[in-house]
């Protein structure tokens, strides 16, 4: 197949979906490329590091505006490209094309959301079904995810990973010998690298409240940096209201790149610019400006995506005690305010399910 990557990238910047056969081809070729990457990829500054994007395509465009376009700027993406946002397909498509087009200028690390189990629960699978009418594209991308590297080291000084550290991993060499070409397991070092979180209140490892990975503290961070001759750990994975967070006396940073997460958290986002002398600068930004955001209908669908039913879906439904859509219905001692449950046995969700799928 003749592939015009520049044309693909141009279409994707305009949010036009690529054909299923094209997705198949770019995934195949990118897998071949990634197959030769180590589990620990070594790169040099300058490089701009990006945290979680979660399908927020317009905010990814914002990142290119602020940080510069490929290949003028080197990029390191720390994972979580998909799920939750409305444009996971477009986001993953464009990043895959950019990696294929500029393999030495773009690094893609695997996040905990680059997994079959997680994408079935958190939205990417559903989005693929909606946009392509079949699960094929989801299969192509999730197979591609199995090839993404697990970590990157910048200038032999900054260790970059999606989640964090593992009690089974003391040295970089241990990561290098792992077999990463598979679905992320529930437990073990590979799971830990993409699921763990730092805990500034602790010194050691503890079981994580997320149900996978661990939380790790100050002594763990110090020991890891010392043993591997590095001075900083850079990761993503956790929402930061200010867009970033620095912990453990500047030995660890979290970079978060999805502003106004899920279109409602109201948080800032950032990208981290690492200079040739090791300087680290967080470039903070807000959600993409009004005129380039999703349309009102799409935002409403996003809210529905998170909440289930758009408000107002049931207003005007029949008078015999049908469900009310007003949240005020649950309020204290209102006279005659109907109970939220209908006993009429009707199923008003049919329309909702139609929207949802």
């Amino acid at each position: 197949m003749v592939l015009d990557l520049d044309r693909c990238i141009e279409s994707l910047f305009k949010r036009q979906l690529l054909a299923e056969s094209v997705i198949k081809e770019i995934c195949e070729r990118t897998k071949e490329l990634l197959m030769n990457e180590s589990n620990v990829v070594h790169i040099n500054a300058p490089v701009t590091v990006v945290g979680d994007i979660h399908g927020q395509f317009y905010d990814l465009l914002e990142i290119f505006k602020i940080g510069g376009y490929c290949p003028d700027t080197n990029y390191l993406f720390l994972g979580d490209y998909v799920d939750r946002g409305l444009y996971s397909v477009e986001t993953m498509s464009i990043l895959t094309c950019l990696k294929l087009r500029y393999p030495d200028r773009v690094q893609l690390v695997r996040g905990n959301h680059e997994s079959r189990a997680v994408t079935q629960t958190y939205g990417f699978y559903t989005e693929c079904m909606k946009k392509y009418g079949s699960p094929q594209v989801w299969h192509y991308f999730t197979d591609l995810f199995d090839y993404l590297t697990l970590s990157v080291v910048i200038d032999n000084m900054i260790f970059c990973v999606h989640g964090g550290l593992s009690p089974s991993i003391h040295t970089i060499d241990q990561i290098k010998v792992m077999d990463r070409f598979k679905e992320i397991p529930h437990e073990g070092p590979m799971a830990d690298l993409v699921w763990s979180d730092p805990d500034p209140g602790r010194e050691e490892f503890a079981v994580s409240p997320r149900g996978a990975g661990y939380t790790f503290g100050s002594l763990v961070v110090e020991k890891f940096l010392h043993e591997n001759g590095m001075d900083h750990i850079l990761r993503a994975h956790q929402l930061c209201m200010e867009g970033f967070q620095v912990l453990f006396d500047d030995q660890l940073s979290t970079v978060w790149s999805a502003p106004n997460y899920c279109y409602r958290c109201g948080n800032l986002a950032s990208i981290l610019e690492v200079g040739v002398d090791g300087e680290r600068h967080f470039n903070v930004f807000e959600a993409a400006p009004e005129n380039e955001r999703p349309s009102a209908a799409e935002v409403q669908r996003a809210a529905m995506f998170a909440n289930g039913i758009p408000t107002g879906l049931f207003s005007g439904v029949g008078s015999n005690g049908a469900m009310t859509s007003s949240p005020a219905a649950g309020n204290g001692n209102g006279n005659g305010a109907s109970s939220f449950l209908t006993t009429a046995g009707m199923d008003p969700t049919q329309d909702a399910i139609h929207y949802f799928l």
Partner: protein
Amino acid sequence: MSLPDSLNHHREGLTTSHHDWTMLQAKKLVEGQKPVQIDANTSIENACEILHMSGISCAPVYDASRKQYVGMFDYGDLMTYVLLALKKMDVPLEDQSMEMRDLIHKSRQHQQVPVKLASDLSGKDPFCAVLAETRLGAIVNDFGSGIHRVAVMNSNGELAGVLSQSSVLDFLMRHLSEFSHLQPVMQKTLPELGLVNSNVLSVNGDAQVLEALMAMSSNNVTSVAVLDDQGVLIGNISMADIQYIMKDLKASWLWLSCFQFVSKVRQSRGVETGEDQYPILDVNATATFGYALAKLQATKVHRLWVVNDNGLVAGVVSLTDVFKILSAHTDS
């Protein structure tokens, strides 16, 4: 910056001279608690909001006009209310209490239902009060027989606090290094303790949520495993998830498939905390008891599914199972 763990123990005023945790009095564990309680005339919808905002699954219901506690309201009661209101549950007239009859009448008339009619509605896990001097050993025994929480009362009839299975587990785990008697059982594996028995209520991912709730209710369990067509565990629905149905009136979620519901609950939770959880909360069949407890404590769930290496469900470790085992180990 926080202090190292050893200093924290002293700050909690725990007398470390005595390592027998069974002798600790309930009042010590509820010290400083500001227990949440719900006024008897609050609507069920608002009562659910209170539970949700406080991050708890149960609260005592207080009737100011009678100056007494009339019961507990928890998600099991909410589920029973939902099933009764939707006519998915049939309780013969002679078995209906006055409160239940009143509740059914009000909901048929589409009136607000005050929570006092729904407290202890499920008939399971009713209001269980213990005096503040009651020893932890006795409470753990109760927990092992299926009681999920107790209301700790002062001698003047005031509520000192609520001790739940979760809060007691958390306490024991945080002070584990002081309770040497507990340490041997922590090293035992789940099969050694009889926790791998595959007697687990499960439902297919395509079944409706309402069916899952009905199955939970009639089988008297608080959660159900959601499996795909190959029998692989893909999620879990527990009674506590019903809070997401009440919130913002998402009642229509009752008709979603179990898998869609699991997905929606997970997505809601992850936005609230800014951290997504692993879709399945489980423990491998070869794990130790201690590891299972650490995971129960960290994730704050009430049970973990036991899975084998293929992802097939092989059993369940619930908090009740945990306390049954701890209770048995203190007797020996």
